[in-house]
């Protein structure tokens, strides 16, 4: 896809963006069917919006909803559980609770038990996800990444083949900006986690996520501040710097 095409997609209206995402989702369902497709759902604003788009697209296709995969890495916000439990019931979603880090046979001496540290992220999220893909014969997984999140994501496309395990990533909301997500959530009355109202912009594990501000996420200056500023404390790095000045 050319840069111009990406820019065109990112400047569409909300209605057009919703239609574009549904087009990608319908194409994915036609290609993989709903049995072999799963939705990666974190309870955050982006993946909840994506799940809502799937629900709408499936209604239009008269197709059943694909499975939703929710990974419990062991340190999930209570407020995330609230929105997950609400939507499981209201939208009739299947979910797999994969808190099985202890079953993975990891025998290293120790690693930081933080879902957002490098090892922690792999063991608590990636391995759990791969396990899920393999056990359920999933051929395609839909994830809610966006082009505007970080520079590293600018190269992503709607369909992206992956190996280990082999599957296709479907990325139907790439063209949404952070502000579009909030516009869609408010316009279409999509439920969202209460933490955003109290100032969180991006939700990770409880122990490493902090508020960006005290005002609701959608009222913050999204264009000039970093969405993920509240994620990850970088404890090791902070400790190193403090030690250099004689502390700890």
């Amino acid at each position, binding site marked *: 896809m050319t840069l111009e095409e990406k820019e065109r997609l990112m400047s569409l209206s909300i209605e057009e963006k919703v239609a574009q995402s549904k087009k990608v989702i319908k194409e994915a369902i036609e290609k993989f069917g709903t049995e072999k497709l799963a939705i990666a759902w974190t309870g955050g604003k982006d993946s909840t919006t994506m799940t809502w788009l799937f629900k709408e697209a499936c209604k239009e296709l008269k197709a059943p909803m694909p499975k939703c995969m929710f990974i419990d890495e062991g340190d999930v916000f209570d407020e995330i559980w609230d929105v997950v439990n609400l939507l499981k019931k209201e939208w009739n979603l299947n979910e797999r609770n994969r808190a099985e880090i202890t079953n993975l046979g990891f025998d290293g001496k120790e690693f930081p038990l933080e879902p957002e540290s490098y090892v922690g992220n792999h063991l608590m999220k990636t391995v759990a996800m791969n396990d899920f893909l393999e056990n359920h014969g999933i051929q395609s997984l839909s994830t809610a990444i966006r082009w505007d999140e970080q520079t590293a994501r600018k190269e992503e496309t709607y369909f992206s083949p992956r190996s280990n395990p082999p599957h296709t990533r479907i990325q139907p909301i790439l063209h949404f900006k952070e502000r579009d997500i909030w516009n869609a959530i408010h316009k279409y009355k999509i439920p969202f986690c209460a933490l955003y109202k109290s100032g969180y912009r991006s939700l990770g594990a409880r122990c490493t996520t*902090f*508020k*960006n*501000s005290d005002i609701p996420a959608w009222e*913050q*200056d999204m*264009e*000039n*501040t*970093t969405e993920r*500023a*509240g994620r990850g*404390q*970088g*404890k090791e*790095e*902070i*400790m190193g*710097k*403090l030690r*250099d*000045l*004689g*502390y*700890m």
Partner: protein
Amino acid sequence: MFGKLFKKAKNKVIVLGIDGVPYSLLVRFINEGIMPNLSGIVKNGTFSAMTASIPEVSSTSWSTFMTGVNPGKHGIYGFMELQKDSYKWYFPNSSDIKSETLWDIAGKNNRKSIVLNLPSTYPARQLNGILTAGFVALDLRKATYPESAYEYLKGIDYRMDVDTQKAKESSSALSEDIDRAFAIRRKAILHFLDSHEWDLFIGVITETDRLHHYLWNALEDKSHSEHNFFVDFYKRLDSFIGEMYKRAGDDIPFIIVSDHGFTTIKKEVYLNWWLREKGYLQFKKDPPESFEDMLGDSKVFALDPARFYIHLKDKYQQGCVEGREYEAMRQRLKEDLVLLEVDGEKVVKSVFLKEELYSGGYYNDAPDLLALPYPGYDLKGAVNKTSLTGRGFLTGGHTRDNAVFFINRNIKEKDINIVDVGPTIISLLGVEHKNFDGRCLV
């Protein structure tokens, strides 16, 4: 060239923060002719020693500066806290400051602020103006608001801090790096001062603190390889102060403030080892690696620099001290601390109970007891030490007294504390604000 931006001198304020600079050192360098600009500037105004916060660390002291309230209200008691359930470390950051900052208050009154390199402002929060955070800042993008300021700083290869790892290479590698960091800081501060609109401008130099920690011994020792560097650094600081003052003139209030003083470290004193010897504290492992190794029947533990916490049953997951034992425990600890001696000398100059220092909504999080040392003893909360005293790699340590305050106005108030600086700034901006703990000095 400054005409347009500087014509309305009324209700503007410039603050230059100089981290860890003692009043007495500036007086000495003025007398020795090393700081001619400062010498001229301090003739027109009030130049004075100031007391810092307790504890006398940058995070607490600058948080007190930026809120004008005591730590019982702003909630920052140090660089690290222990989580009450897991005994893991927690590092407070800008989102843990519970009171409004000077730029929050200014912003509500439609006044613009530029805040550069002030410690304890990471990650950057939204404000009416520009901010790039100081120590401990990890990522420039997260440290900076708005995006356009980040783009500028990235473009000039801005440095958030001195690379203190250079000290492991050599003293000269460190001093070169201090110089580089200072040069880029000076460039960034002057850029924002000259080319952006502001009502409140706060620029902080932290290279002074790094220089003092690592090379304080070079000041007195003329044979030290970095002695000349130390003195030359202050000459460069002086010329920078001169450049900033040129922009303020006598019209715009110009404040120079430091967050603590500095002194020579004779010995580091390891408080947790002392608590172990006195039977207040026990660990499962020897040497312990962290407070996660602390045994449940421990009664007291200490965090940097000299914050003592009673291991209360109601407060901590494995706490063992009953509420009714609390007062007696603090009294016993206070009496023991006063008697603490190293090489036949008393170490602890004063001990404070939390209620003597703090009040406010976050009073419960305060340390139960705090100590200040006699000069030369650096009180440490390290967990893993197995002796009462030792020498670290730092030669200079903080003092609560002898921080510096200057304003190009004549003021009568005496006994200035860092909590007074914020209210003074807000008043000079022409903004009314209640709920400060400090006094307006002008």
